[in-house]
């Protein structure tokens, strides 16, 4: 039996129905020893191998090792025994027996970092983005909803970059929580004008809560969870 760190075990015990746990994972320090890679199943290895850039493949493997370690900790099973099924939109979700915890998760991966969000029984989506230095002016006008664009343009130049990636992370987290990929145009999702809620095509979505997640410098992240009440979001750093 793999032993989890006291922090991990404690966090796993604390997850209640109103809680959201977000693990901020530095993939550079994620385990890559042979025993860790043993945890992964064939599909995960195959998917890593399909990525053309071997670095992407390596980070994919590292992210899934962390995912299995943490899910194993929350479910009190060995990492290798964690089983996933694909939803009809292709997102992984847990296969759990009857009467089990109803744990939901969402994993997001970017260059060098990953975020894992967990909840009890609530649909959840998380997104983490590396803040790059690419030009954003034309992208902002296409990606941001009108209230977001207004806010974005009112910001001083220096603050815009972080703001854009944060807003993008919120949108992406929402789409992931819905189980949709690119099917919804990002410009339809407004994450700013309803204070912690989301408007989709100008209609208020009462059932969803959005919250930014403070992760390492140079990255932006947000989590979206289904539910009427504001969730209690706790952030942990892996390991």
């Amino acid at each position, binding site marked *: 039996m793999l032993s989890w760190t006291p922090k991990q075990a404690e966090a796993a015990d604390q997850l209640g129905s109103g809680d959201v746990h977000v693990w901020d994972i530095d*993939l*550079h320090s994620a385990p*890559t020893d042979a025993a860790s890679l043993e945890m992964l*199943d*064939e*599909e995960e290895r*195959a*998917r890593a191998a*399909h*990525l*053309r*850039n*071997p*670095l*992407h*493949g*390596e980070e994919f493997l590292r992210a899934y090792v962390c995912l299995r370690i943490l899910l194993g900790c929350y479910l009190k099973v060995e990492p290798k025994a964690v089983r996933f*099924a*694909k*939803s*009809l*939109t*292709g997102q992984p979700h847990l296969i759990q027996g009857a009467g089990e915890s109803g744990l939901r998760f969402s994993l997001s991966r*970017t*260059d*060098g970092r990953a975020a894992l969000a967990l909840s009890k029984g609530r649909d959840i989506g998380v997104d983490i*983005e590396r803040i790059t*230095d*690419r030009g954003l002016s*034309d*992208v902002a006008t*296409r*990606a941001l909803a009108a209230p977001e664009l207004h806010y974005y343009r009112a910001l001083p130049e220096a603050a815009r970059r972080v703001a854009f990636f944060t807003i*993008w992370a919120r949108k*992406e987290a929402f*789409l992931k929580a*819905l*189980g*949709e*990929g*690119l*099917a*919804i*145009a*990002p410009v339809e999702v407004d994450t700013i004008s309803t204070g912690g809620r989301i408007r*989709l*095509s100008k*209609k208020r*979505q009462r059932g969803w809560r959005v919250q930014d997640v403070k992760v390492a410098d140079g990255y932006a992240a947000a989590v979206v969870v289904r539910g009427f009440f504001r969730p209690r979001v706790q952030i942990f750093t892996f390991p």
Partner: protein
Amino acid sequence: MRQGNASRPPKAAARDAAAPAFILFTSGSTGKPKGVIHSHEFLVHQADAWSGGVPIGLQDRVSLVYSCAFAAGIISTFVALLGGASLYPFDLRARGLLEFSTWLADKRISVISMTSSLFRTWLAAVPKDLRYPALRLIRNVSEPVYSDDIARAATHLGDSALVSQSLAMSEAGTVAVHTARPSVPRDPGVQPVGTPVRNMEIRLENEDATVLGPGEVGEIVLRSRYLSLGYWKDPETTAANFRTDPVDPTLRLYRTGDLGRWRSDGDLEYFGRRDRKVKVRGYTVELYEIERALLRIPGVQDTAVILDQDRPQDPRLLAYVVATGEIALEGGKYFRELLAKELPAYMVPAYVGVLEKMPLTSRGKVDRSALPPPPPRDARSENYRAPSDEHERALAQIWETTLEIPEVGVDDDFYELGGTSLQGFLIFTAIAATFGHDLPPTTMIDAPTVAKQAELLRDPSRAAAPTQLLAFRPRGSGPPLFIVHGAYGGIMFVREVVRDLKSDRPVYGLLPMPLDGKHIIPRTVQSIAAGYIAEIRRARPHGPYLLSGYSSGGWIAYEMAQQLMQQGETVSFLAMIDTVSDQWKTDANEVSTDRVKRHLRAVQRQNMFRIVPYLAKRITGTIRHHFNVVKRMFTHLPNLIRMFTGRPTPYTERRTFYYWLFSRAARTYSPKPFAGPLIIFSSKGQSEWHKKRSGPLALGGLTVKEIPAKHLEMVWPPYSTMLAEAFDAFLDPKAG
């Protein structure tokens, strides 16, 4: 020796052995020259240390191949002169290595000192049968010496000759030497630099200044009286690197910035500069580790690994090797594959160049600036296809800048290139700016390559009118296979199946009709099938047709087959993927008189006292049932309204609506027997049940193939591979 502008010449002979004797200018790793000040006693100390204790005397003829402006040159000069030997200068740059080889023999040179890179290139140039009976010491310095070099040198030397490799630096001269006869057996690969010279202590320390024992890699720290006095006019750097020993104030300590490791036999291994620790995508990489891995490959003679900073935010590792024998003919890929077995992916160089020889600087060190430039950033995919027209070229350019990947081939898959949603969005933004019209973001799902997107851009009508047909595999020689979505309307599983499908034919997925309010929503399997037939006839106007459907989509495929045959077409293949037979119908068909009889029989069997509770249970059950029917009506009221009015369905409700719509259609569908053969891919344990239920429908025979997975899992990896195999077995039975 550079002087004059840097230092005033001494006014008189040295009064003090510890006083400055000369200043040596080094290039320094930053490119800004540093002046290293040395004392008189340093030179005297080096006279002994330089040769590792091998006495240099009157009879010796010492060659001088380096300028006196370099440490190697000035120290050799003084060592020879202090020992009373003769000094023979030779201008290598002007006269060349071949002449050097014969000159060494003609002049009966007995001691040579050179960098190991020069040693290696010289050995390659020496005529095969040339012997040097007078040569008694070859001194290697600065760079790694390999066992192969020494073995090769042995063929040109007399029996008593010695070869040494040493660790030396401008700030301290020679500090460690390993001397042995070339005939002595030695470990393969890089040779150790031996043990400290007299009056020199070597320590290895980690970053916390803890002294390390054998086996651990640490920074080489020197403790001696005979170190440099410091840097000329640079007290800061001097203070950073040199300090007085806290125990014995006559000694000083020098942090070399070099890495080393003690072997268990007491010899020191030299691992190169500490600042050769680089960061690649956030991972710390010691370049020497890569060099050592390369040198472990048999036949590799020499190597240099550098960090390519042409794109500072994304540096990459480049390696160069000099190899002999068969592997010299191998390309860089061969070496990268071997390295990939030993090293983590981030340490495998992006490029390995195979060179005939290493370019050397005038000091005989590897000239990194003269290494051949690497190819443009690499990683063309294996089945790279270059863009062939304007659309493809412009698109490939957009992909390359957004994904920061050079040379995107037109068939490269966006997701396999590691593309993220944000990058996908950026690509569409750039497409809109370049081509002046938008592709819907969902395009990345059904057209994830440059070629497919270029096709959409060439014919905007196709992109503008959303089609229900997704070409998961656009090309192939056989007639196409059409696969209908499942109950939730999802079709992406086809992507996974197609990946492993060997059958050489195009594969299309059928999406459900869009719920945008502009399309009429059909309600029955018959009308849905009729609409889908219109879609597939756009891709393939006439049969034979190959049809399949997942879950309740199986009934749609079944009905399409029926209608197509009525229209005079051939259906050569029909497979339902775990399509559930209409189990709801049996109860609905039970006439009410039967139901009354059943209840009466049950009542008769009951004990008198149990009748009341039995009836109460039935009655509450009936009430609850009708309550549920009403409740369901209310929950599905929005769906009913949407279906009858055709109003758009919000994205968040899409999947529920499709599920409701398709389940409802399947429930009310009465399949007529099918004239042809029917195939069912069953989920785990359901084979018998499928045979029982669907057997009577298949007039042309029913084949059931079981996939050992649950209904929802069977179309996704790893089971999608089995499903693809099953498809292959039925699509091309002869091939199997």
